[in-house]
């Protein structure tokens, strides 16, 4: 390692030799950097999980354009739309089809008395509202009342339950005091930060479960375009045809972006995770600064001697930044490995889509190097105390 670094720097790797000379301190410093890295990775993981979990239901929609109430920020919070908007949308040139979808939250009581929150979509069983083959295969059977398709990635539900349903063994449960539902199939979306999973029923079943919802007031209208239709001009035509006072017309991508922006910047969870990243960076800066400035202080006589020998300031800056770089890289590796383990554990426990995108380690490494370099830059201020005239 020393020989490799010597070749790399074209000089003796003093920083490396200093760091490994005190192995206990080196290990503590690396643990500190790794800890900061784990903090950052965890926060980014949760933030990424939040963003991804928001996207997943949209990704299943068989729609090019989503019509929502103008006050809707997410799938869950908009007012109902007048059903008339559906017919108005269908009349716009370029629109191939449109279907009304109803949305409500349902508490699914478990045998042990705990509750899972389900996001329930009520769809027209004759329309292809979702892309999933699994949904579309089972969809015709939703024509029968009180039938449902359940998200098999719903959090904290025994896997055997879904296996049994998929094996052709319908599962019955009491949706509320009014209806018992029979689950006849499963599909896959996965829970997010607010709901544990999803449930799809026919619109008729939906109205029976939720007495306060009516056919005249859907929550969304999924619009598909004719092949070759220009998305932007249809979008503009829809916006012209529908009153902006109660209706918002967005592409799926725009709707996802709005939802993600809202939940990451306006809702506490998103803000907390962003804040967590900042804290992780601060912790890292403080730890590395502590290590580097103690190291500079411990070697002030040696540095003064090197100054007397004729080394200039850039040499000492080089040594401190060399140490910063070594701490960044050697601390990053265990930090990332630990983070991968924790990600797997989080996925296992919460079912949240917490994964390591390929670019994230790269960004975190760059950030770690930046963080360590910044600490190094602060620590070099102590170098000024190395005065060779004091050696006599």
């Amino acid at each position, binding site marked *: 390692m020393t020989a490799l670094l010597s070749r790399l720097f*074209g*000089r*003796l790797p*003093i920083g490396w*030799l*200093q760091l*490994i*000379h005190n192995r206990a301190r080196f290990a503590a410093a690396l643990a500190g950097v790794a800890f900061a890295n784990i903090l950052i990775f965890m926060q980014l993981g949760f933030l990424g999980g939040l963003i991804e979990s928001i996207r997943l239901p949209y990704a299943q929609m068989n729609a090019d354009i989503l019509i929502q109430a103008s006050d809707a920020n997410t799938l869950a919070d908009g007012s109902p739309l007048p059903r008339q908007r559906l017919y108005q949308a269908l009349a716009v040139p370029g629109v191939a089809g449109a279907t009304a979808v109803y949305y409500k939250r349902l508490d699914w009581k478990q045998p042990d008395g705990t509750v899972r929150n389900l996001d329930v979509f009520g769809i027209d069983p004759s329309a292809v509202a979702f892309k999933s083959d699994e949904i579309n295969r089972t969809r015709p059977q939703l024509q029968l009342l009180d039938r449902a398709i359940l998200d098999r990635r719903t959090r904290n539900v025994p896997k055997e339950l879904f296996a049994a349903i998929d094996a052709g063994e319908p599962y019955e449960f009491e949706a509320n005091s009014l209806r018992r539902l029979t689950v006849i199939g499963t599909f896959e979306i996965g829970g997010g930060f607010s709901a544990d999973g999803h449930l799809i029923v026919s619109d008729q079943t939906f109205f029976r479960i939720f007495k306060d919802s009516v056919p005249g007031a859907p929550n969304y209208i999924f619009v598909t375009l004719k092949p070759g239709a220009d998305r932007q001009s249809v979008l503009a035509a829809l916006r012209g045809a529908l009153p902006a006072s109660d209706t918002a017309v967005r592409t799926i991508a725009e709707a996802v972006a709005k939802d993600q922006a809202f939940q990451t910047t306006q809702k506490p969870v998103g803000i907390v995770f962003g804040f967590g990243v900042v804290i992780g960076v601060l912790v890292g800066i403080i730890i590395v600064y502590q290590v580097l400035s103690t190291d500079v202080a411990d*070697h002030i*006589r*040696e540095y*003064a*001697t*090197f*100054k*007397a*020998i*004729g*080394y*200039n300031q850039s040499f000492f800056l080089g040594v401190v930044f060399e140490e910063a770089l070594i701490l960044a890289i050697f601390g990053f590796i265990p930090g990332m490995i630990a983070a991968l383990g924790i990600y797997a554990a989080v996925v296992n426990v919460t079912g949240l889509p917490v994964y390591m995108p390929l670019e994230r380690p790269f960004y975190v490494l760059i950030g770690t190097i930046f963080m360590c370099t910044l600490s190094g830059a602060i620590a070099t201020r102590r170098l000024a105390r190395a005065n*060779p*005239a004091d*050696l*006599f």
Partner: protein
Amino acid sequence: MDGSQTTLERPKQAQPAPHVESPIVIEGLNHWFGEGDAKKQALYDINLTIARGQLVILMGASGSGKTTLLTLIGCLRQVQEGSARLLRNELFEAPESLLVECRRRLGFIFQAHNLHESLTAMQNVRMGLEVHGTDAMRQWKEAAAHLLTLLGLGDRLNYLPGNLSGGQKQRVAIARALVGNPDIIFADEPTAALDKDSGYEVVALLKRLAAARNTTTLMVTHDNRILEMADRIITMEDGRIVKDEV
């Protein structure tokens, strides 16, 4: 770039220049410490010329100004008044870059060895060579090992300072000072941390190596046994040179 050979010379005044100027020429040097009311003069009108290849010993009680003088000629402090020419470079009003450049032509040996504890004997000596750039580094292993062997450390080349005795550490420090072939060696009580015998031995080695290379040595010491090795002994008192014996 290796700037160690560059010489920045000031235009000479009327006085006749010697053919080869002495490595150290000091004229009318005064120095003060502190500011305002606390300002205290440490050196008074020092005039001193030291010839090449000599071992000159600087004596005097503590506070007599000998260390101040050493740090001024050693380019570790700014000259405030008067002239100090080191290897034909005027140090008065010299920029920091010239001071750094001059230091590279000097060898320093301190009271404490000041070795870097994370570096082996070889690596510590290497640091004395690395400052001269990549050209000087080509044969660094041979040069460092040769010097350390001359100083009796041939079997301890890769020892860390923590595993060396005080005398051995001071000999590594001497090797570090000598490896760059300095024109002048400044030594500040190099034997202070050593017992009498190893102190004598270390200075004898230093003198032998310096003589072989025609290196000038300026040494501050109180050690009487070392005095007999000197070519010249200068005694200071209260910031003035009071005795100059050859």
